[in-house]
């Protein structure tokens, strides 16, 4: 199992303080968690960065793992491709502890990955990134005619939908007939 060290170098610098040193609160060490996608590549991510994901935040908030326990129990996201998870982790690290600006230049730009990225972000419940991704999807049809939109968003025509529905019905009928025949054979 390979491991990347995402997030380790992006810890926020200590805030300057005017209070006397003796009165300053002791710095709490940042905790890290580990996640992996379909490719099993493990990403180390700080709890701060993971706060963007409502799903993961909910999972880790009551765990109280030690570093060793966290390392030994990476969160598996088998439904997310490795490169997509990498994009998401990168984004979470870049936005650790700060809100996303309206025009975020650090956001993933790969159009060909957009579909999988949207699904992953939706699954991980990263609201700000989801809004951005949905904006990207919506932008694809800006100023386009219905015919162009149909192509860009791969929307089947009514005729195609009807044909697909007929086909599905036919298949379901065949399967039902097959099951009936098999049941009759069993009874004999």
């Amino acid at each position: 199992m390979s491991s990347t060290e995402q997030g380790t170098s992006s810890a926020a610098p200590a805030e300057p303080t005017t209070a006397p040193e003796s009165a300053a609160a002791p710095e709490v060490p940042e905790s890290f968690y580990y996640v992996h996608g379909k490719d099993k590549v493990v990403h180390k991510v700080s709890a701060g960065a993971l706060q963007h994901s409502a799903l993961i935040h909910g999972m880790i908030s009551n765990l109280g793992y030690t570093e060793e326990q966290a390392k030994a129990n990476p969160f598996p996201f088998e439904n997310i491709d490795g490169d997509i998870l990498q994009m998401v982790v990168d984004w979470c690290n870049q936005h650790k502890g700060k809100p996303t600006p309206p025009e975020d230049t650090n956001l993933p730009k790969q159009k060909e990955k957009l579909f999988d990225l949207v699904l992953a972000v939706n699954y991980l419940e990263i609201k700000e990134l989801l809004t951005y991704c949905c904006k990207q999807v919506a932008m694809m049809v800006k100023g386009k005619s219905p015919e162009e939109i149909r192509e860009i968003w791969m929307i089947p025509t009514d005729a195609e939908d009807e044909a697909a529905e007929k086909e599905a019905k036919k298949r379901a009928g065949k399967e039902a007939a097959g099951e009936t025949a098999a049941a009759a054979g069993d009874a004999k």
Partner: protein
Amino acid sequence: MPIALLKFPTDLLGEVFKECNPFELYNVSLCSKRIRIVLKSRMPRCWKISSDFIAIGVMCRNDDAYKFEAASRPEDCYKVNVRRTMQIKFRNGKVMDSLDYMLDIFGCSTMKCMAFLVYNDLLKFSKIAIDKKLEIEECHIDEMNNDQEFSDSLALINQMNITKLIELDHRVSSRIVPHRITRFPDELRIYNSSWFSIEQLMICTSAAIYLRDSYLNNEDMDRFLQKWKRGELPNLRVMKGSSVKLDGESPILEMYPPIRGQTKTTIKRISVDDPYTIYGVKVHNDQGLEGLLEINLTPRYSRFAFIVIDPTDTVTEEIDENFVGAEED
């Protein structure tokens, strides 16, 4: 790079639609029956529609409208210009059919504003409005072909749920209009109101009544204001307009016109951005509310204004011009 939108979970589709403007949503709706069903079930905002039966405007709350108008040439279809206007081909060549379609697609239960220039448009639209149980905020009716059409228009608007404003601009040839208004919105504006009788006025529940070129005489005005004095017009905030029948021969609230105070009062309603200046005489009703009445007699149209001052919603600025004048002397 295409993307298979319909493979997204439906809640996610709602997130995508949230980022689309009405032009994009309309064009998406034309792609297929299936996407239309999904779109309707995931329409993200409460859209409102306006129409004057030349164009259709779609807006969110009080934002500027996205305007749809008929494409002059087929090649201009779906083109958007800088004035936030998209050219489309109206369904079956009729604005009404496109309006009906958009009400359905955008899931509108409220129409912002409807303006009718032709009786038949009103007739067809009223069926849609009643069928869909639409709330119509503002309804404007222009000059109809004849008094009968106008009278029938009143019968139709009584059946619709118009909440904020009815504005009527038909000039009757005879003062006899068989139909009457029976459902009143917050504001009633009649620009040629000779047909609007005192019987109509006495049952009017609008908060703001504007009657231009009316036939209300002193006795009518007195009857109406006596009703207010008894506290029987709790909604009334303002009534103003002009009349050909007012004179100085008989009293209104025991005062003979012209009725004019010496204090210039500027009234600013907190809820409405329309400062109004009146030289009114103070009158009070049984509920302790104060009103200002001003009647100016002129040879043709005498002007009247009656403003109710509600301390919870009104700022008044009073200037005694006599006093100012005396100081200057």
